Every structure is written in C-alpha cells, then in structure tokens.
C-alpha cells in the first residue's frame, strides 16, 4: 500500500549532522552534537537512551521545531524534499498536524478540557481543508473503532476528563492519525500508563501504524516497549548516536558496551529468604478519604524484619494509600498497624519521635521530595539534628559519611537539588531516610521515574544497604522487573484489596489468581514477538 505522497521504501525524513544548542544558566550548551537520521516511508524507528540523551529534542527537531530556549545551529532536516531548518514558519505550520503529527507523553495535558474529543480529533483535518466535517468525523469514528476504544460511535462526544488515561492516549493517536500523516512522532506515549493499560495502547498503536503505512519515530526509555514497536533502533547518549541497527539484530547482538549495559539491566534478581520475624503488620485495615470514599477493604499485610515486601498493582489499587495508613497520614477507619509487636497510634500527631524515626519514607518523585531552596547538606543534616541532636562538625562528618554510603562524593555537600540528576536526587532521598536510622523504609515507586541504568544503580544500593544495616523495605511498585530484583515477598493489590501475599517464588509461579495472571502477562518482554504472541494468546 502506498501513502498519498509516495510509496513504501522511499526516504521520507533525512536529518544530516544535526546540532542543537540550549540556553541555561547564562550560557549555551550543546544538547545534540551532530546526529544523522534516515527514516523511510512506513518504517518505525525507536529512539532510546537515558534522560538527557536528547531523544525528545531530536524528535521535535525532526518536525523542524525546537523548544523555547533551544536552537538548531547546524545541519539539515529534509522532510519529503523540503529542508525544515530553513523553511518559513508558515511552511512548517502547513506540515505540522497534517503531514507530521506528534503524540505527547501526557495525553491529559495535551487535550483542551473545554472541547469534545471528536472536535479535537478532526481539528487538524478541517483546518487544512483536507476533507469535509462529515467525512472527517466518520473517519474519526472509524479510527476509534480500530484503536479499540469502547463505544466508538459516541465516545467522541465526551470531554477529555470523561475517559481514562489509556483511552485518552489512544484518542491522541486517533487525533494524530486523522489527517493521515506521513510521519508520527511518539514521545514516550505509554510511560505514564499502567502495564495492563500500556499493552492495550501498544497493540492499538502498532496496528494502526501498520495499517496506514505511516512512518514513526518512537521515543522511549523502555527497551521492552521499543522492541515491540520499532523496525530499527537508534541508541542515543549525551546527544550523540551510540549505534543503530535492526531491532532483532540489536537485541541479539548489541555492539557497543553502553548498549550491552542497557540490555543487562533487567537481569538483576534477588534470592528470596523467608523469615517469620514480623516487624510490622497491617491488620484488617479499612480506610477512606474524607470519611466517605472507601479505598482500602480489609487489608492485611505482614512485613518480616530485614526483608523486602513488594506491593504490586495498577494505579488506584490502594498501594500508596496503604503507605499513608502506615505513616499515620491517613488514620484507618477500622483495624490497626502493629510495629514491633505494639500497636502504633493511628494519628501522626499522637506518635512519639522514636516511632517516627523508625519508619521512614522515600517518594516516587525525588524532585518534589526535596526542598529546592535547601542544600544537600541541609536536607540530609536535618534528621541528624532533629532525631540525634547532632550539630557542627559531628553533623558534617555524618553527612559526608552518608554521602559516601549512597556513593556520592563530598562535592555534593553544598549543592542544591536542581543541580543533581534524577538518580542522584533519589540517592539523596535515600540518605535522608538513612540519616534517621530507621528500621523500615517505605519506598513508594522510587525507581519508576528513572532510566533503566539508573534504576539498576538505585536497586543495587538499596540491596547493599539492606545487607549492611538489616533494613526492612516495603516496596511499592508496578514494575515486575523491579519486583524480581528486590523482593523476598510479594503482595498483589487490586481495587483496594489484597489479592494474595506470599514468597516471590510462590506468587510468580502458577497457578495464579486471575488478576495476578493479567498483571504478569502485561509486563513487556525483550522479545520482539512478545506483543504478537500476547495478542494471539488473548
């Protein structure tokens, strides 16, 4: 099948020695340092790399667009014979949205909440007078159907807040697809979704890209996802290309050291060790927000000392709420939390300093977990001062010691959080928790915002700390690979209730309850045929 502007196999997009600078802190910095990229019609290229590698910047540059504060300093971007670097704004604007479409990570932020979905889906087609409104709307409904959205005839009459996150992401793909573009740029379209939802979106996107023979750039940091979507993979690092190859070839025999290290990350696995010495138990807890919206139903969890219990489940399953019950932020309606054999006061304000000190928490987003106006020394030093009464040189020495424990050097002592990378920030949050000398640390999705390679570093650090200081972790996550890497026991939660708790080996091996089965099945594997098999299996 050929698209309206050419046939499969022709070169659609050719970027030559592209260089992009970004402005920050009074200086221009090089973001992209000379990358070549060739994309043929109907081809899907996966761009992978850690954050800061320049994936998104390169993706946007392929439209001839740069974010404010960035500029293309060198090179050319030839799209279907036209150089977008030198093209005028009007020329580019006539291409954007119609021949080149963009699907952003956060669908919720990309839709106008005040307009119906159908109107937004057909907007680009109508603006460029590609087809009449009736035809465009009929076509949009057809797209909804192909993307397996429920009730395709009427779903377009809803507003963005009336559909789920996964549906909205597919809706955005429909919007991008409506004018039948030659090129779609997917910028981490499934990163914000649950694994179970992610599968549906991936299947739908892959099918529709194949059907209309659209070329695509698929930007992600998730290797397993890119393995399902892309024909070729390009690995980026520090604004340069590391290597490029066919997906199968790349997965089988990556050439560069860096690519190999990316591939090996998922292999981390902790040997489980059973224990009956329970440090913390949650007994028959019901909890509700505002006294009415019940989110936890009769939750029972036992956490053995010095072990890691992973709580898995999709968003809304009550994982984080359980953490709030333990920390005392949300007193339970029924039931209690026992710590070292004694019942903890339900309310935060009734707990003693000693009780607070022994239960520490690490958050998903290290960005918002640290005060941007405090230095690392102040952030780590405060619990030392508050719980242990350290000051002056003693405090300073201990902070440096803690920095060493999290594998950072003393140059970090007087930096501000904004000067740290994502992984370093999370390490500082770990150090802050450690500073209190806790017995148990609640980790709420601590690795899910991080790149794979950084994730591995953090997980290794947590494991080492557990070995050295016999710390207990309650590890909340939705990522099964992380569960494998760190846990002894697993708790599966669904819709506010515990489905099952047990040793990792028990939970991971069949037979599974229905939900556990679905959850385990939805985790992408590094096999490029995984998605195809899964679809057949269903």
């Amino acid at each position, binding site marked *: 099948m050929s698209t309206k502007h050419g046939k499969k196999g022709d070169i659609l997009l050719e970027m030559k020695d592209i260089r992009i600078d970004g402005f920050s802190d009074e200086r221009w910095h090089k973001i992209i340092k000379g990358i070549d990229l060739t994309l043929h019609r109907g081809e899907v290229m996966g761009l992978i790399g850690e954050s800061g590698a320049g994936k998104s910047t390169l993706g946007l540059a392929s439209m001839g667009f740069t974010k404010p504060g960035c500029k293309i300093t060198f090179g050319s971007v030839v799209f279907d014979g036209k150089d977008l670097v030198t093209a005028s704004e009007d020329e580019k604007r006539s291409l954007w949205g119609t021949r080149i479409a963009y699907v952003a990570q956060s669908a919720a932020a990309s839709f106008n909440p005040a307009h119906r979905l159908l109107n937004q889906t057909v907007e680009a087609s109508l603006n460029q007078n590609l087809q009449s409104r009736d035809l465009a709307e009929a076509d949009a409904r057809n797209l909804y159907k192909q993307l397996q959205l429920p009730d395709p005839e009427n779903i377009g009459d809803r507003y963005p807040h009336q559909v789920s996150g996964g549906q909205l992401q597919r809706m955005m793909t429909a919007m991008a697809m409506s004018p039948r573009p030659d090129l779609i740029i997917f910028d981490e379209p499934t990163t914000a979704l649950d694994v179970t939802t992610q599968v549906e979106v991936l299947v739908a996107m892959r099918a529709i890209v194949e059907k209309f023979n659209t070329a695509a750039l698929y930007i992600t940091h998730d290797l397993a996802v890119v393995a399902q979507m892309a024909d070729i993979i390009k690995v980026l690092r520090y604004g340069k290309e590391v290597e490029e190859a066919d997906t199968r070839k790349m997965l089988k025999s990556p050439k560069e050291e860096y690519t190999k290290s990316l591939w090996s990350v998922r292999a981390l696995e902790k040997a489980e060790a059973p224990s009956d010495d329970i440090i913390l138990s949650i007994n028959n807890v019901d909890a509700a927000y505002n006294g009415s919206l019940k989110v936890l139903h009769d939750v029972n969890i036992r956490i053995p000392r010095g072990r890691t219990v992973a709580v898995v489940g999709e968003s809304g399953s009550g994982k984080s709420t359980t953490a709030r019950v333990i920390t005392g932020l949300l007193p339970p309606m029924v039931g209690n939390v026992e710590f070292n054999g004694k019942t903890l006061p339900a309310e935060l304000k009734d707990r003693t300093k000693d009780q607070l000190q022994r239960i520490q928490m690490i958050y998903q*987003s290290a960005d918002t977990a640290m005060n941007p106006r405090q230095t690392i020394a102040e952030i780590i030093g405060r619990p030392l001062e508050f719980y242990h009464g350290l000051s002056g040189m003693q405090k300073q020495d201990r902070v440096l010691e803690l920095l060493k424990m999290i594998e950072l050097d003393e140059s970090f002592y007087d930096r501000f959080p904004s000067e*740290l990378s994502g992984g370093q920030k999370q390490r500082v949050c770990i150090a802050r928790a450690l500073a209190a000398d806790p017995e148990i640390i609640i980790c709420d999705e601590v690795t899910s915002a991080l790149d794979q390679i950084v994730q591995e570093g953090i997980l290794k650090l947590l494991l080492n700390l557990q070995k050295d200081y016999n710390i207990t972790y309650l590890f909340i996550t939705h990522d099964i690979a992380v569960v494998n890497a760190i846990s002894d026991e697993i708790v599966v939660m669904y819709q506010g209730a515990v489905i099952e708790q047990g040793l990792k080996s028990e939970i991971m091996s069949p037979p599974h309850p229905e939900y556990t089965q679905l959850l385990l099945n939805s985790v992408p594997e590094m096999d490029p045929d995984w998605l195809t098999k899964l679809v057949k299996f269903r």
Partner: protein
Amino acid sequence: MTDTPQAYSAAAEIGQIRERRTWIQIAKIELKKAPYSAWFGLIVIAIYLFVAIFAPLLAPHGEAEIFPASFAPWGGDFVFGTDQIGRDIFSRLIYGARNTIGIALATTLLSFAIGGSLGLIAAISGGWLDQLLSRFVDVLMAIPGLIFALMLLTIFGSSILSLIMIIAVLDSTRVFRLTRSVSVSVVVMDYVEAAKLRGEKLGWIMRREILPNIMPPLIAEFGLRFSFVFLTIAALSFLGLGIQPPTADWGSMVRDNASMIQFAKYDLTAALTPMIPAGAIALLTVAVNFVVDWFLHITSGLNDEH
C-alpha cells in the same frame, strides 16, 4: 566517546551544576541586563532613601520652623516659598520624605507580619481554621477600605500609632490572600509531607520549608503594597485624618497648599507649589512599580528573546 566513562557511576551522572555565585555577583549580572525603567526606579528610590535618612542635614530650615512671611514666593531664602503659616516648603518636603516613607514602611512590614503568618497558618492547617480566617478576611475586604479606615481613625483618634495599626490590619487582608494562595501549592509538595512525617513543628515547616519557596511573589507584593499604603496614608492626610501637623507629610502638604492653584494666572510658580508634594508621591509610586516589575520578571524565570 572519550570524555565520558562507559562504566556506570552515580556521581558521574550529568546534573546541571550551576556556578557558585554570591548574591552580590547575581545582583551585578542582573543589573547589567536591567532595563532602563528598572534603573530609573532604582535611582529614584535611592535618592528618596538618601533624602529620608539625611533629612536634618539636607533641609535648610527646621521641619516646623515658622517664618514671618507666609505664602512667600519661590526663590531667595525659600526655594519653593513658604506655606500659609510661613513654614519653608522645601524643608518640609525633605522631612516629609522621612515621615511618609518611614510610616509607610513600618505599616507595610506590620501588614506582612500579620497577613503573611496568618496566610501560612491557613494554608498549612487547612480545614476549619483556614475557613474561619479566609471568611473573616472576606468580610474585612467587603468593606470599602478608605471609608473603613476613616471610621476607625475617628474612633481611635489619629495618632501615628493607630494610623499604622489600622492601615496594617486592613492591608494585611490582601497579603493574607496572596500568601495563602501561593503557599497552598507548596504545602502539597512531598518535602512538606516529609517534614510532617519527621515530626517537625508548624513553625519550622512555615519558616524553613515553605517561606523560602514563596519569597519572590511576596517580595514583589511588598513593593506594590508599599506603594498602596503610601498612597493611602497620603490620601488620609489629605482628608485631614492622617499624619497630624506639625509633622511634615506630603499628603497634608497638598491639602494645605491646594488653594494656591487658583493663583495660577498671577504667579505660575505658586500654582505649582501643591503639585510638588503630589509629584513626589507619584514619582515614588511609579519608581517602586518599575523595580517590582523588573524583579518579578527575573524571579518568574521568564527567559525571553533568545
């Protein structure tokens, strides 16, 4: 790829390290880029402050010194002439800077102390306390400010102390609203929750976790509120309920000499006399606004024209 190690190390991850700069260096960089309006504002404010501080050295005559010649013309011993009872207008202008700016500054500081702390408390505690404070502020704001101030001044008498207290309380309602609304977005941050979980007291959370993060809008608001307080005091003085004679003050100077405007056809300079204190008020207000605009532009992090 020789510049970057292939093996993973946590310390080698790229973070954007900012150059260490003292606030003096930052100020120098920003001043270099400052627009003309900001420079104008800064210079005007500097002159006003200089005059206010060194008033007794600069003024040729005493603040309330009465000379036999009332309504003396411009020039000679009296640069801007004398007023209706023979006081030197130029000297009173200089002393007026000291009184008007000093009182306005004290009032603004007090209103920030009241409104700022209550706003923070409302934002952190939420619930019924937030409702109580916010609704009380709504009630206060529903009453026209100037009329309310006039009423309170008639009840409590127009001493400088009651003037400061009344205007500060009335103005703190706006500070309360601003502080509360900017704090609410900081209060939900994980680091505030982390501090609560650590067991920190309310005061510590207010001072150390929230206040540093809401300073830029508060400082900008401080400049604007200062202008409004300054105008309110001038207005009250003009109406006769503000700063009382013989203390020199620009608002009352406008009132005292307002009648001279009708002599414009005989002596233009006489007609200009009441304009001078009025102009002094206007100039300072404009200058403060220029500086606040510039400050907001820097701190909002808008990096335009690149």
